[in-house]
């Protein structure tokens, strides 16, 4: 009996890669950013397909190929899923405590910084009429 291409292994691995690499895409939308469920969905589907593929390669070895590629890709896939989970659940939460940041009721430290045209902007001028919202962000656009 001719052995078939074990598509479940390859498609599964592709799903895992897609789940990992699409992080910067899904992160643009708040609904998929706060908890990256879309990525975990892709990773989950990929993991399940890889498991099915490996099971087929061994339990139905007369019908399916993949005794070598199956375990290799499954292990790689598992590593990618573990790495992604580590980043999301641990790394992204490693932020400094910022206990010295101005609290509600305190005065905001004065400053003067250049805007995108190089013009110096002072906090005192920004807040003069209605107050202002300061958004500190990571940068490196």
């Amino acid at each position, binding site marked *: 009996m001719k052995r078939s291409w074990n598509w479940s292994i390859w498609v599964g691995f592709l799903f895992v890669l897609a789940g990992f690499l699409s992080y910067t895409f899904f*992160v643009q939308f*708040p609904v998929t*950013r*706060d908890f*990256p469920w879309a990525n975990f969905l892709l990773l989950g589907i990929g993991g399940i397909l890889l498991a099915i593929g490996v099971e087929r390669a061994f339990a139905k070895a007369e019908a399916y190929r993949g005794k070598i590629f199956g375990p290799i890709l499954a292990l790689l896939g598992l590593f990618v899923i573990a790495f992604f989970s580590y980043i*999301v659940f641990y790394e*992204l*939460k490693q*932020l*400094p405590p*910022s*206990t*010295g*940041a*101005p*609290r*509600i*009721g*305190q*005065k*905001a*430290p*004065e*400053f003067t*910084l*250049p*805007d*995108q*045209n*190089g013009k110096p*902007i002072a*906090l*005192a001028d*920004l*807040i*003069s*009429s*209605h*107050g*202002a*919202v*300061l*958004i*500190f*962000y*990571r*940068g*490196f*656009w």
Partner: protein
Amino acid sequence: MVAISVDPPEINKRQSQKLGFGYALLSDVKAGVIRRYDLLHPGGGPKGANIARPAEFLIDSTGTVRWMNLTENIGVRARPEEVLNAFDKTNHASRD
């Protein structure tokens, strides 16, 4: 509304044109202001660069902080509605 980061004015200009922002992007290249607000994330940026951790402050016209938000997770930001609600509440309070 102003946004502050360690990006220099050239990058801010390019981004603000590309994204069509109406508000000012301020450059705190040496992170002096970021440090004064205790928002420094040492080595948190690409290649170990010092950057700000995400945070938002609502300052009223007397210079007092009325609302602030420190994100606990780099992936999460204050939603625009939260910021606008805080802004609204402060304006109504100061009119009374």
